[in-house]
């Protein structure tokens, strides 16, 4: 039951093409600029040795990480927004990203390895999701209660993060700050690989198993149950899976804020299709992260990608609130 509406395919395909174009631009950017044509040639094995080294060894891992992180965040955001039936119900607003950040930061300050950091991020993200569900889930997962709980959780976790930042010595704090902002700088295959494995499992499950059910859930719990959807299992299962995906993305690149919020929103506006819109969201998410990374590189001095998505996301959220209010939906 995958949507094959022409409009959806067009939007998804267009976003993928745009993402590929920006990726090629990014691969050609740096101290040693390479023309887009040469980048494409090199990717297909036709470039000279120097270009092959720079593109394939130095720059490709970063771009692949950016694409995977974008897809992961967008998929998770789409599921969260669908389950909470709220365009604002994304994992960063709900505090799941902050939970992953606080746990990973603890490891950074304690001087742990990057494997420990990843494990901590995953545990922190999933743990936060469970706590939110425990506090707010009693009377259903949708509505603003859930989001307000997320805002409260985020405030508590930010307090803890601030404390951890003051505990480290200066070098560690700089490294921790950089990690906390979300960055693809220096990311290699060892960060991308675990995320790739998780996505290879999670995305088919979400698209094939959860997607159709979530679309029916949007008609209301009773109708969905009458149509044979296991409402509670579907909700809890897809939320937990999505939280795990976000946490792995945070482990790879740090908490890159707002992609999970924006990508599914844009997908929904463009495709005008019901349901979580998973596949077009994935493409738009990847376009957003790769594009934001390109912007971050070209901003004058090297800022991490999370600053770009944070600033764009804040502006977008203000705009969304204003339009939703005028439409009477909030």
């Amino acid at each position, binding site marked *: 039951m995958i949507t094959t509406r022409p409009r959806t395919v067009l939007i998804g395909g267009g976003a993928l093409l745009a993402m590929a174009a920006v990726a090629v631009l990014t691969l050609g950017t740096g101290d040693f600029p390479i023309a887009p044509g040469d980048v494409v040639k090199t990717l297909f094995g036709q470039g000279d040795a120097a270009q092959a080294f720079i593109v394939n060894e130095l720059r490709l891992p970063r771009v692949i990480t950016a694409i995977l992180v974008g897809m992961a965040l967008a998929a998770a955001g789409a599921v969260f927004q669908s389950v909470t039936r709220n365009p*604002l119900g994304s994992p*960063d*607003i709900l505090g799941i990203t902050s939970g992953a950040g606080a746990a990973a930061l603890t490891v950074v300050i304690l001087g742990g390895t990057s494997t420990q950091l990843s494990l901590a991020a995953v545990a922190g993200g999933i743990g936060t999701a469970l706590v939110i569900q425990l*506090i*707010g889930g009693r009377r259903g997962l949708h*509505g*603003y*209660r859930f*989001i*307000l*709980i997320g*805002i*409260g*959780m*985020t*405030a*508590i976790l*930010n*307090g*803890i993060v*601030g*404390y951890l*930042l*003051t505990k480290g010595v*200066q070098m560690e*704090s*700089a490294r921790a*700050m*950089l990690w*906390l*902002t979300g960055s693809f700088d220096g990311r290699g295959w060892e960060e991308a690989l675990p995320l790739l494995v998780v996505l290879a499992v999670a995305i088919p499950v979400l698209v094939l198993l959860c997607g159709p059910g979530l679309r029916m859930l949007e008609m209301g719990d009773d109708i969905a149950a009458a149509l044979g959807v296991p409402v509670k299992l579907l909700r809890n299962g897809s939320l937990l899976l999505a939280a795990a995906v976000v946490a792995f993305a945070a482990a790879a690149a740090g908490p890159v*804020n*707002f992609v999970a919020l924006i990508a599914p929103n844009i997908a929904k506006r463009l495709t005008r299709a019901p349901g979580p819109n998973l596949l077009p969201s994935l493409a738009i998410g990847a376009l957003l992260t790769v594009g934001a990374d390109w912007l971050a590189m070209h901003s004058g*001095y090297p*800022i*991490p990608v*999370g*600053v770009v*998505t*944070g*600033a764009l*996301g*804040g*502006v977008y*959220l*203000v705009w969304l*609130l*204003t339009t939703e*209010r005028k439409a*009477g939906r*909030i």
Partner: protein
Amino acid sequence: MYARQQDPPEADGSATLSTIDTRPSVAARPVGLLVAVVVLAVVLVLGIGFGARFLTPGEVWAGLVDPGSPFYRIVHEMRLPRTLLGLVVGLALGLAGAIMQALTRNPLADPGLLGINAGASAAVASAAAFLGIGTFAGWVWFALAGAAVVTALVYAVGGGRSATPARLALAGAALNAALYSYVSAVMLANTASIEKMRFWTVGSLASADFGTLRQVTPFILAGVLIALAVARPLNALSLGDDAARALGARPGVIRALVIVAVTLLCGAATAACGPIVFVGLLIPHLVRPITGPDLRWLLPYTMVLAPVLLVGADVLGRVLGSPGELQVGVVTAVLGGPLFLYLVRVAK
């Protein structure tokens, strides 16, 4: 009575909060205020007493008044300014929270949650990184400007008079996220400013001195006077604009004055000790069951008890974090957060 007043004007499915219906007995309020003042005095003595060496109340007194006492210098140079700054800043944050909750009819309003402290932080970070300003006297003007811009913005984005608690909280979360991205970008661009600001951005009283105290007090005093002056018309405003006009109040002027007061209070407090969350949320909520919604009682209670929270949290942070310390902003976040979650959970 209180629960009715706190309902947002339209029923649109967003979260609305109610609290226990309380009809405080008239005699209890002055007595309670007296008790609160005594509690404040005790906490202030504790605030001065705690430190590398614990001073008994007698030693605190001697250190305060007797120049010959061995504790005179330590009390006057380190512990007194820190405690007094906690008093002034706590009062400012609590009062700002109370009048914002009244203005927006939003029980979740808090200068930290609504992004006002973040606005002040962003302006201070810019001043520190781009203009090399590193003192309170320089920071305070930037902090006030940042607080003013965000206060106006969050009110506008949240929908002004038709703001609901959820909408305002979301507008605040949006601004918070964007502004803190900016603050970290500025700090990352300049490692020296990370070192200068990483303690400040948590919210701490550790660097307090009499110079900062002297400079912060006029701004906060002005904010307090405005807040107290609008207490009565703000009460009338809770009945609706028309009723307020009938009672002789001018809604537009009152709203503008409240925003000016919030800006003065939050901007000065943030410049002095960094962004501190939840003091403005917590105290009015704890006080309201005693005072009821009448601001003429709510505000004085808040002014006495908010410093109790802040100075108390500072002492607690020194005890828990010993031999170092836990910044006061961390303690208030960890204490206040669960109460916020509870309030959301019990909401209708």
